[in-house]
């Protein structure tokens, strides 16, 4: 009976563990059980991440200005006078909310990456929204960061069209577990986040070659915008990226961490941020579950003791 099988399957998946790391499982067993609260708080604070990276020599986009109060807004135009392009970020944002890319400046107006023009007042209102905590994950008052904008590295040119791709690494107990390339598309309007329409492509950890890919939670083989075959493409600077991802994971103090790296045209691999609660779609992009890999690292660590 089809209905009975279907119900049995739902019951089995709900109650019995499978190889897939689920939201509940991540939150219960790979949240506070493995990561210390102070390290999680540090990961949620982009300014601290940036400082840690600088002190450990991990390459990361430069921080132009930190706006902590409404008074700082008055001095903003002096600080940005010589900077034509920059990124405005909430310090404790989530899921890329409230991030604004300014790509060029025309007189007094700012050009956003999506072609929208902002006046100086628009920018100030956005920053004061950030300060009031509108984009912070807990709704508390926040700090606005003004950061160097990462420029498209020529090594990406065959893959990237609309924006800057980045690589998400999952590191557990100091070892790489899984990696995924996130590619912006026309549909995602330059954003590499998967839920906003970016492509996620699984990466073979040994070679840096792309394996499978998903777009909008469905498997794809070719890039939806220009039809390039994704499988077999290689991520440039793969060794350096892995190296810095592991260094960043070490520096983060988190046992289970998602590290985001990208390539800058001038500086090569740079660290964007690390995340104490990385998303689970990486399993879909790699067509493999995380849980058995994580359990194996657990076993190895227990046997080492």
């Amino acid at each position, binding site marked *: 009976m089809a209905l009975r099988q279907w119900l049995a399957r739902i019951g089995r998946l709900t109650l019995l563990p*499978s190889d897939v790391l689920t939201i*509940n499982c991540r939150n219960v067993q790979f949240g506070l059980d493995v990561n210390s609260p102070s390290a999680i708080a540090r990961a949620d604070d982009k300014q601290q991440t940036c400082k840690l990276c600088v002190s450990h020599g991990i390459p990361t986009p430069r921080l132009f200005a930190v706006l902590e109060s409404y008074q700082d807004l008055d001095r903003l135009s002096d600080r940005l006078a010589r900077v034509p392009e920059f990124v405005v970020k909430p310090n404790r944002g989530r899921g890329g909310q409230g991030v604004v890319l300014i790509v060029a400046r025309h007189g007094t107006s700012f050009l956003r990456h999506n072609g929208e023009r902002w006046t100086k007042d628009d920018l100030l209102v956005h920053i004061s929204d950030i300060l009031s905590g509108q984009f912070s994950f807990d709704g508390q008052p926040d700090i606005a960061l003004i950061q160097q904008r990462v420029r498209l590295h020529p090594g990406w040119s065959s893959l990237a069209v609309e924006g800057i791709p980045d690589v998400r690494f999952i590191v557990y107990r100091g070892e790489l577990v899984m990696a995924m390339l996130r590619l912006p598309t026309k549909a995602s309007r330059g954003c590499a986040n998967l839920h906003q329409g970016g492509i996620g492509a699984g990466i073979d950890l040994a070679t840096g070659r792309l394996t499978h890919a998903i777009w909008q*939670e469905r498997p794809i083989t070719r890039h939806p915008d220009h039809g390039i075959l994704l499988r077999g493409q290689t991520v440039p600077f793969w060794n350096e990226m892995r190296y810095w991802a592991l260094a960043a994971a070490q520096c983060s103090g988190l046992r289970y961490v998602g590290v985001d790296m990208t390539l800058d045209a001038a500086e090569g691999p740079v660290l964007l941020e690390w995340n104490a609660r990385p998303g689970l779609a990486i399993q879909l992009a790699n067509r493999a579950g995380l849980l058995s890999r994580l359990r194996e690292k657990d076993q190895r660590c227990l046997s080492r003791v």
Partner: protein
Amino acid sequence: MSETPMSRTTLVHGLAGFLVLGTVAVTIARCDGIGMPACLAWSHGLSLLGLPPAERRLAEFLILLPPAALIVCLVRQVVGWSTFGTFSPALLGLAFRHPETWQGFPVFLGLLLGGWAMRQVLQPLRLLHVPRLSVLLTMLALALLLLVAQAPKLGWHLSDDLILFPLVILTGIIERMWLIGSEDGQRASFQILLTTLLTAVLISGLLGRPAVVDFLLHHPEMLLLVMAGQLVLGRFTGMRWTEIARFRWLVSDAATSDVAMNANSQTQDNLLLLRFEAGSSRYRLSQETDAWPSASGSLGSVV
């Protein structure tokens, strides 16, 4: 106290077991006709059925709130629906638990959609966050006051329980709805509104029955059972129903043949171990010939 995730889960399950046993013990102790010893006579005083009406209303609300919270936990952790606010569906469901208060529901929905429309009007004014919330709150309060003033003339009976659902929560729902709408699209925000309302309907349908209310008032010890359920859900690691659809081709039996076919045509992931040596800026590369089980469950070939 506990070192590994597993032992922590066991501890929580043990606690929940104790609560279940405690509930059973108290319930048995309160059974009439067993001839309970005098030292347990206090347990007969537990029933809240004999309270005067005003206190009874308060007791009713207090005793229904934990089971309502349990239902919200179930909906969020097991079903996987998201709701606006953690406990607003519980408060909403309880506010509309009596059939005679259902006519207040269109009022609530009207306020919500009206507030959402007002939020749209406020957007181009680019107000700061807190003043903007305050303006929204004032608008809602005005609308509700007008309604309250007009209700007797129109012969409406507005629910006293409407007070249980503070305007502040309504304002919060509208603001969250707006934010989610502007980030993920209006479809997503109305979907979450729908699941919030469905959860509230579920709560009012299950907990609004007089038999349930009387049973809980007579057996307040059942709250221990409710707490046991909440504890178990607090360490629940199973797949949410909404995730089953998402991960269907990682776990589905039907899809494995398709996945296996794709997996055979490409190299298996090689397990690469890259350990970062603390204190030195060098890394060690070691490659193990160790293949992961492919999605079909069989061990893939080692490349």
